[in-house]
C-alpha cells in the first residue's frame, strides 16, 4: 500500500516534468498542487529562513500545510510513504537480508540522535554561508533529479547511500543521518495514527524487531499494551505485516 502511494507521487512528479500534467508539479522541495496551492518541505524553508531570506508566502504557507499535515497524522510517514529514497534504502535492506551481509558498523553502535545534530548543523551552516546548506547535498532531491533529468552525479550520491546502507551501516541514512526524517520525528511525535501493541497476544517472537527500521521505537513489545509512541516510528507497517499473533495494528488515537 505505501509503495503504491510512494510510486504514485513519484509518477505524478515525473508526469508533470515530462508530459506537463498539472496535478502535482515540482518536486519534493516544493510542489504545486493542481495549480491551486503549494506544498513545501518545511526543513528547506527553515534553512531558507536561517540563511536570512523571507520567502514568498506561497512557500511559507506550503510549509505550514505540510507541517500541520504531518503533525496531525504522524511525521515520519513521509519517510516510509512518500520519500523516494526509501525505495533505495529499503532495497539495500532487502538485499542485505537476502545475502546475509554483515555491515561494517553495527546499527546500535552509532547514536540515532546523530540526525538531530545534522538537522541543527544544517541550520547553522545555512546561517553562516547564506544559503540552504542541506539542500546542496540533499539526496532526496538528487534522486528526483536523477530520475527526471538523468543526472549521473545525483545517481552517484544515491548509489553511495545505497552501498553505505548495504555494507557500512544498517539503516545508515534514514535511521541515523537524514535531517529531514529528524525534523518529521519532532513534528510527528503526537500524530494520531499509531501502531498499537496488544501485549496479551504477543508471543515474544521478536519478528517485528527484526524488520523494524527504527528498532528503538518497539521498546514496549512483549512488555505492555500501548501505542508505539516515539516520533521516530515511520508507520511503515512492516511490523504489522510480519506479526503472526495479531499483536500489532494501526490505530487512530490521540494518546
Amino acid at each position, binding site marked *: 500500500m505505501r509503495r503504491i502511494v510512494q510510486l504514485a507521487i513519484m509518477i505524478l512528479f515525473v508526469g508533470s516534468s515530462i508530459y506537463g500534467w498539472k496535478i502535482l508539479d515540482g518536486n519534493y522541495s516544493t510542489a504545486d498542487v493542481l495549480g491551486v496551492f503549494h506544498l513545501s*518541505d518545511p526543513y528547506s524553508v527553515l534553512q531558507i529562513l536561517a540563511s536570512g531570506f523571507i*520567502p*514568498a508566502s506561497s*512557500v511559507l504557507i506550503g510549509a505550514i500545510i505540510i507541517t500541520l499535515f504531518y503533525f496531525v497524522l504522524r511525521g515520519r510517514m513521509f519517510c516510509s510513504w512518500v520519500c523516494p529514497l526509501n525505495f533505495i534504502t529499503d532495497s539495500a535492506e532487502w538485499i542485505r537480508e537476502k545475502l546475509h551481509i554483515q555491515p561494517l558498523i553495527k546499527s546500535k553502535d552509532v547514536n540515532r540522535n546523530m540526525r538531530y545534530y545534522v538537522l541543527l548543523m544544517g541550520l547553522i551552516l545555512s546561517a*553562516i554561508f547564506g*544559503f540552504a546548506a542541506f*539542500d546542496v547535498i540533499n539526496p532526496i*532531491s538528487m534522486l528526483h533529479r536523477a530520475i527526471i533529468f538523468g543526472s549521473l552525479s545525483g545517481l552517484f550520491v544515491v548509489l553511495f547511500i545505497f552501498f553505505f546502507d548495504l555494507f557500512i551501516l544498517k539503516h545508515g541514512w534514514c535511521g541515523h543521518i537524514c535531517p529531514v526524517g529528524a525534523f518529521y520525528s519532532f513534528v510527528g511525535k503526537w500524530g494520531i495514527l499509531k501502531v498499537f501493541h496488544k501485549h496479551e497476544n504477543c508471543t515474544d517472537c521478536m519478528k517485528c524487531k527484526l524488520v523494524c527500521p527504527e528498532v528503538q521505537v518497539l521498546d514496549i513489545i512483549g512488555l505492555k499494551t500501548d501505542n508505539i509512541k516515539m516520533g521516530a516510528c515511520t508507520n511503515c507497517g512492516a511490523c504489522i505485516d510480519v506479526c503472526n499473533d495479531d499483536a500489532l495494528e494501526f490505530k487512530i488515537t490521540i494518546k
Partner: protein
Amino acid sequence: MNKEDHAMATRREAVKNVVKGVGYFSLGGLAWGGFIKESKSVDFVLRPPGAIQEKDFVKACIKCGLCVNACPYDTLDLATIQSSTVTGTPFFKAREVPCYMCLDVPCLPPCPSGALDVNLLKNDSEEMDINKAKMGLAVINKETCVAFWGIQCDACYRACPLIDDAIIVKTKRNERTGKHAYLIPEVSADSCTGCGLCEHACITELPAIKVFPRSMVMGKEGSHYIKGWDADDEKRLNDIKKVEKYSEDNSGAIDYLNNSDDLFTDD
C-alpha cells in the same frame, strides 16, 4: 573501587563523551562547511528572467524546478552537484539553449519562493515584459569576432530579439582594403536582456560574443559624476545638500588678527 572513585569515573566518562560529541559535531560541520564553500565558489551562471540578486537568489530558491518544468524550450536546468553553482538552482547555458524570450514568460509566475520576482519585469504600464529582463549582458571579444577583421557577419545582430536596440551594427572604413567597410556589432547594456540568442548564433568555434551575469561585467561610475550636458542628469544637482564648509561671517578671523590684546600679559 569505592563509591567516590566510581562517581569520579562516570563523571570523567561523561565529560569525555561530551568532548567527543563536540569533536564529532565540529568535525562534521567543518567537512560539510568545506563542501558548501566549494559548491559556492561559483564560476558564473545565467539565471531565469526576473531572478533577484544572485546573493539573495541562492538563498531564496527552494529548488523545486517549477520554472524548469514551465520552460517550453528546455532552456532551464537544475544544477547538479557537478554544475558550477549551488546544487538544485535553475540556470541556463546560452550557447547550448538560450532563452527564447517567450512573451508570456511562462517560467516566472510558477516560482513559489520569491527567487523570481514579477516586479523586476514590469514595464511602465505595469505589465510583465520579457524585454525588461536582465539575465546578463553580452560581451564581444573583438579579436575573435570576424566582423572586426572585416569579414561580413551579422549573425548576432540578426539573432538579437531587440535588433537595432540591444545590438547595433556600426560601419567603419576598412583602411586595409581601402574600399570596404567594417560592419561592427555593438551591444547596448541598457537594452541587452542577456537572453543569449547572440551567443547561440555566433559562428566562431567558441562564441566571440558571450553573455555574462551583469554584476560580472558592469562597472559603476559613482554618484559624483554628472553629465552636465544632459538636462535630466543635471537635475541631480538640485537634490544635493549644499555643504556649508566656510562660514560667510569672517569677522572672527579679522578680529583675531587685529586684536593683539592676547599677546601681552598684564604684568
